[in-house]
């Protein structure tokens, strides 16, 4: 794989492949994810972009306008993996038959609803069959497009519209599904987890690696949603930093089965620091709910320790 040197300025000066004028919310993490993943396509390289139904789809390709510079396909909610695997296969046949000469990259985006839940089978199938494509999950931890319902990516105790906190409820009772581990268990060449940190180098490097690694790759990007998480729009970078510094959202890669930890905080911050910024966890800070914070911290610690073992870090 020809990985290019990270040159922040050069990369930021590359023309956006997701054009402005789309209808995503101001400060949406999904849009930041898409713009930056597509920046990792080397200038001049062609791509076909896939998309599961969700906020991103209904806001970036609203007839008769598309925000995408590249060819783009959306068909339904649960089939982004399968749809793009058809496109990728068509590419191989048309190339073999001499009907096209250019090379293409295949990148598909889905939220956590379309990826962790309704689209998991289609994603698993596409990865297992070995299509040369990248599946990018912009994980905002709930079904945001339909109005903040819980998903299997929703963190424990989060207040959502289908797991509301109340006198008889602590919010979502279950822990979050660890999709990156499930994808790594497919033994595909590349799996990575990232978010928006600093100058976006981690996101860029992983996107480039995912796109230019032959075979299937999966990227899981923590992409906060100001409406669902209930924080000030301007705080997104701080929220992401705290997700990483509290080890709620560790940065790691699985390259050809080898687990690599990309960042280990010098001093792990308490989970509270990440939670307190978000309205969806407000109830955890009420008197008498200390045990919930404790339980959530314990679960986060356990997962972090497991990751350290996998990475031998």
């Amino acid at each position, binding site marked *: 794989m020809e990985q290019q040197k990270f040159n922040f300025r050069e990369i930021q000066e590359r023309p956006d492949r997701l054009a402005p004028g789309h209808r995503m919310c101001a400060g949406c993490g999904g849009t930041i994810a898409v713009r930056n993943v597509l920046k990792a396509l080397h200038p001049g390289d062609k791509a*076909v972009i896939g998309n599961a139904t969700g906020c991103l789809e209904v806001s970036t390709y609203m007839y008769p306008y598309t925000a995408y510079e590249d060819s783009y396909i959306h068909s339904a909610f649960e089939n982004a993996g399968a749809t793009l695997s058809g496109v990728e296969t*068509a590419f191989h046949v048309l190339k073999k038959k001499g009907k096209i000469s250019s090379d293409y990259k295949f990148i598909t985006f889905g939220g956590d609803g379309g990826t962790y839940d309704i689209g998991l*089978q289609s994603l698993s199938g596409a990865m297992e069959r070995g299509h040369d494509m990248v599946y990018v999950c912009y994980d905002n931890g709930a079904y945001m497009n339909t109005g903040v319902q819980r998903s299997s990516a929703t963190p424990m105790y989060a207040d959502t519209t289908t797991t509301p906190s109340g006198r008889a409820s602590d919010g979502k009772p279950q822990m979050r599904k660890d999709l990156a581990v499930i994808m790594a268990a497919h033994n595909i060449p590349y799996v990575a987890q990232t978010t928006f940190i600093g100058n976006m180098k981690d996101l860029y490097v992983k996107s480039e690696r995912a796109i230019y690694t032959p075979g299937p790759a999966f990227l899981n990007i923590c992409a906060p949603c100001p409406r669902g998480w209930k924080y000030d729009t301007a705080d997104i970078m701080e929220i992401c930093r705290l997700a990483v510094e509290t080890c709620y959202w560790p940065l790691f890669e699985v390259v050809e089965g080898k687990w690599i930890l990309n960042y280990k905080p010098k001093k792990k911050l308490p989970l509270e620091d990440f939670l307190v910024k978000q309205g969806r966890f407000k109830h955890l800070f009420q008197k008498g709910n200390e045990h919930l914070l404790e339980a959530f911290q314990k679960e986060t610690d356990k997962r972090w320790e497991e990751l350290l073992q996998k990475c031998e870090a």
Partner: protein
Amino acid sequence: MAIKTRMSGNEAVAHAIKQINPDVMPAFPITPSTEIPQFVASMIANGEIDTEFIPVESEHSAMSATMGASAAGARAITATSSCGLALMWEVLYVAASSRLPIVMALVNRGLTGPLNINAEHSDSMGARDSGWIQIYAENNQEVYDNFLQAHRIAEHKDVHLPVMICQDGFITSHAVENITLWEDEPIKKFVGEYEPEHYLLKEDESMAVGPYAVSNYCMEAKKAQAEAMVRAKQVILDVAKEFEEVTGQKYGFFEEYKLEDAEYAVVAIGSVCGTAKDAVDKLRAEGVKAGLLKVRVFRPFPGEEMAKALKHCKAIAIMDRSESYSGNGGPLGAELTSALYHEKVTAEVVNVMYGLSGRDVRVNDMEEVFGWLAEMAEGKRTFSQYPYLGLREA
């Protein structure tokens, strides 16, 4: 030189696929269509075709991948039956509204409830409003010929709609019968190369497929799609005419069997028409003016043409191999009765439910139906409900 041989309906479809040499075929096995992807996989393994097979993990993904491949610019096909088609449901509509010229081999089998693997039309009839062209076959020869014509219809600039080529599970798909196969050269020339105008992998332009369309635009898109279905009627006839020039085989919207002067007519779809023809022959020998209208094209629905062909009849039995659970009969019954009304046909009409879940229909069963028609015409029999043919009484 045409080749006279014998094969099953599934083999016939596979032979058509071999001659067409499509680009991509995603499929998931389901009885009784499983053999089709198996045959294709063998042909690929033996280096006989250039097709890429995608062994998807479900029918939903089969239709999704077929859609992706077609949008990308490839000639894409798939095959399924019954619950497989039901699982594709959502994407059937998306594929049709995206105006993708996909061709599907559908081997008709009943939808589950109870689970049964035999011939019934509830799968394709359930999908009758999904925007797909539907062409049905009586036997292996017809399913082969229909499949060879499908791409020409689907890809025509006036149409751009997906096509379902239907045959009856087991009765047609697995029964081995005589067949005439056409030579490769003229067939390849007839089918032609696929040259789409716009597609995802077109190198000098990008395109977007599958938008969110607000109410200001969506209704126009649906009207445009409906008009394409209307235009498909002429294209189906034109393609059939060209196919006749190559093979000598004659096809239209439907076949009229001894219908011209018939007093009593049966209207049916699929393999039962062979049985009905035997009954017609037998009754004709006895001096009864019996006839058959065999529906080949169900979508677009040639209602006006069928009603005109039936106008002179005294009594008509419309046969359905699919329950609508409307309490009012089956889909062919409902749509054809409506067409008869518009043509002011005054014949007695009965909608007959037959062959559900593979229930056998014999020549004497069809004779019984013609007997009902004679009685209806003479005012000696009326049906308060739509009758079930061959139902066990106890």
